[in-house]
């Protein structure tokens, strides 16, 4: 009997699969005015290191919401996990800027009443309503942490570099490690925007076909110099530990891990500027545990939780009150991760966003993520 019913489900599924038009438009229900009792459970899609015991356990204890987290390998994993079937499997996602807007436009997210998040008013102004999670004045989550993509180098074997040019220099053949991600094209574009102004690159995420081709050409020149395109943070950590690589495009996470391992490394913000990421805890439009989700947003934006996560992961909290607590956890970590830097610092980072065809120059002639991925596959060969 079961078999037959399953057959019908399968048939129905096949039929729907063939005719699956835009599903999952967010329901337009009103905003909650208060947070009710917790549902006892919270399901999250998170980056690794975002749901560590040290700050999840106190949350579970205080709210009774048991957290189960699924680690995503990439922004697109997050997007796929959130949108498959119109969502509903997960309550929240810690999306970066290159997934957050897509999630909003795909109707996967619900508007959040930031009035219910007490720590919200302590956020740096730039992160209260950033373009990555706020559209038309509607918030779809709360900003959590951000960080720059840095130039990492071995202080014993390399002179302190000042420019991204070090990663394109033939002298450094076989020493370089580069993230294995199409979004890396933006780093090349950022470098070109300063070194080849004739190309007219204004925003490294908004590239015309010619501009993309120029970035790809630069990256193809770089390829013979590359020791490893790292897919996992640990790839780069290993290579810097054992001397396989001495220069690389990196995250603060690797830097703090390497420092902890007593490796001789340093980081630089090169003169051309940096790309970076901003992550947001976003609420699913079909969250089954919305109260626990609100409790999580309330909790994770408090100075203490912010400081714990920042020092663990090596990134910058959006709550300005976190700085003082960071220094009590690890001395000097507030300054190390720029948690007290001036507003101009955040403004200088080109935060990740999804490359799309309709990129604001009015001509819809930009290259999209699909084109970037193909281009990246060409670069890697």
């Amino acid at each position, binding site marked *: 009997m079961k078999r037959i019913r399953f057959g019908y489900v399968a048939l129905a599924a096949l039929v729907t699969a063939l005719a699956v038009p835009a599903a999952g438009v967010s329901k337009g229900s009103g905003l909650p005015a208060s947070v009710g009792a917790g549902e006892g459970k919270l399901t999250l899609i998170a980056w690794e290191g975002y749901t560590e015991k040290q700050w999840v356990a106190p949350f579970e204890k205080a709210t009774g919401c048991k957290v189960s987290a699924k680690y995503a390998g990439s922004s697109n994993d997050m997007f796929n996990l959130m949108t498959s079937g119109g969502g509903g499997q997960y309550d929240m996602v810690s999306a970066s800027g290159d997934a957050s807007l897509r999630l909003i436009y795909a109707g996967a997210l619900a508007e959040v009443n930031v009035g219910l998040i007490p720590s919200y008013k302590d956020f740096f102004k730039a992160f209260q309503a950033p373009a990555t999670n706020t559209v038309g004045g509607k918030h779809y989550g709360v900003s959590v942490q951000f960080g720059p993509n840095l130039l990492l180098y071995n202080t014993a074997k390399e002179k302190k570099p000042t420019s991204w040019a070090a990663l394109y220099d033939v002298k450094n053949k076989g020493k370089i490690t580069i993230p294995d991600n199409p979004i890396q094209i933006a780093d090349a574009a950022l470098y070109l925007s300063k070194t080849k102004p004739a190309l007219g690159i204004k925003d490294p995420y908004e590239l015309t076909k010619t501009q993309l081709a120029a970035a790809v050409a630069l990256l193809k020149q770089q390829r013979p110099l590359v020791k490893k395109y790292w897919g996992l943070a640990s790839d780069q950590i*290993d290579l810097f530990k054992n001397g396989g690589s001495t220069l690389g495009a990196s995250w603060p996470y690797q830097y703090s891990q390497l420092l902890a391992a007593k490796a001789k490394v340093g980081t630089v913000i090169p003169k051309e500027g940096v790309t970076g990421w901003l992550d947001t805890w976003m609420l699913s439009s079909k969250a089954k545990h919305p109260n626990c989700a609100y409790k999580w947003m309330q909790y994770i934006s408090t100075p203490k939780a912010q400081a714990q996560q920042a020092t663990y992961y090596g990134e910058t909290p959006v709550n300005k009150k976190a700085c003082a607590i960071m220094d009590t956890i690890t001395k000097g970590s507030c300054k190390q991760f720029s948690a007290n830097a001036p507003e101009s610092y955040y403004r200088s980072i080109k935060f990740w966003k999804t490359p799309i065809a309709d990129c604001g120059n009015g001509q819809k002639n930009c290259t999209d993520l699909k084109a970037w991925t193909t281009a990246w596959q060409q670069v890697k060969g």
Partner: protein
Amino acid sequence: MERTGTRIGLWVWATLVVLFLWIPLVIMGVYAFNSSNIQSWPIPGFTTKWFSDAWNDVEVRDALWLSLRAGLLATSVALVLGSLAAFGLSRARFFGRDSISFLFILPIALPGIITGLALNSFFVIGGVSFSLWTIVIGHATFCVVVVYNNVIARLRRTSGSFFEASADLGATGFQTFRLVTLPVIGTALVAGALLAFALSWDEIVVTYFTAGAQNTLPLLIFGFIRQGQNLPIVNAIALVVIVVSLIPVALAQRLTSGPGAGRS
């Protein structure tokens, strides 16, 4: 039979192959006792703390338990479907027979990511929420073929006259199954089940797409490796797993390589 030179050569060859298979595992085992979580060679010091760390980690225990349940259930499903398929295909010659065996081989012949993604969208569109059972279904797809192969190979080697004799002596089909067929295919089932469980136990790609917000052991390990932290814990888990699985694997091999096997 073989000349002495050949024999010596084969001994050397077999020794080298075993070394090739086991040196990486021995190194893995050594790193499980590494006092530093920086994995350089040789290790700077000796500790057993990673074993207690692993044991006290709730995530690790949950993942172990989930992997165990998923493996056992997927293996059970595979045993039923795989042996049914083998019975159906072993004697009869009918149209489409080859396509059917092709069908069963497909899940291991196709990249796991395709199976994984296909099942993921299938569950999602069908409104099936991810649970232990979606993992089991995902794993069963490629476990069935393992059981099927083992059972059908055994049936081919067994003369059909056994079953005929049983019928001639008045046994019903079900008595024949219990008294003749089951003993004949018993060891094949054990071997198939063991391999099926091993495949399920270690699967990452299909699991990733069918597990929802749960972590099986390989998914958890992938997380650890991605982050580059807790790596000695991973080695400690692997070492414990290999020691624990030694017993069932050895027993099954004893059982399946009966005295009749090989030279006799």
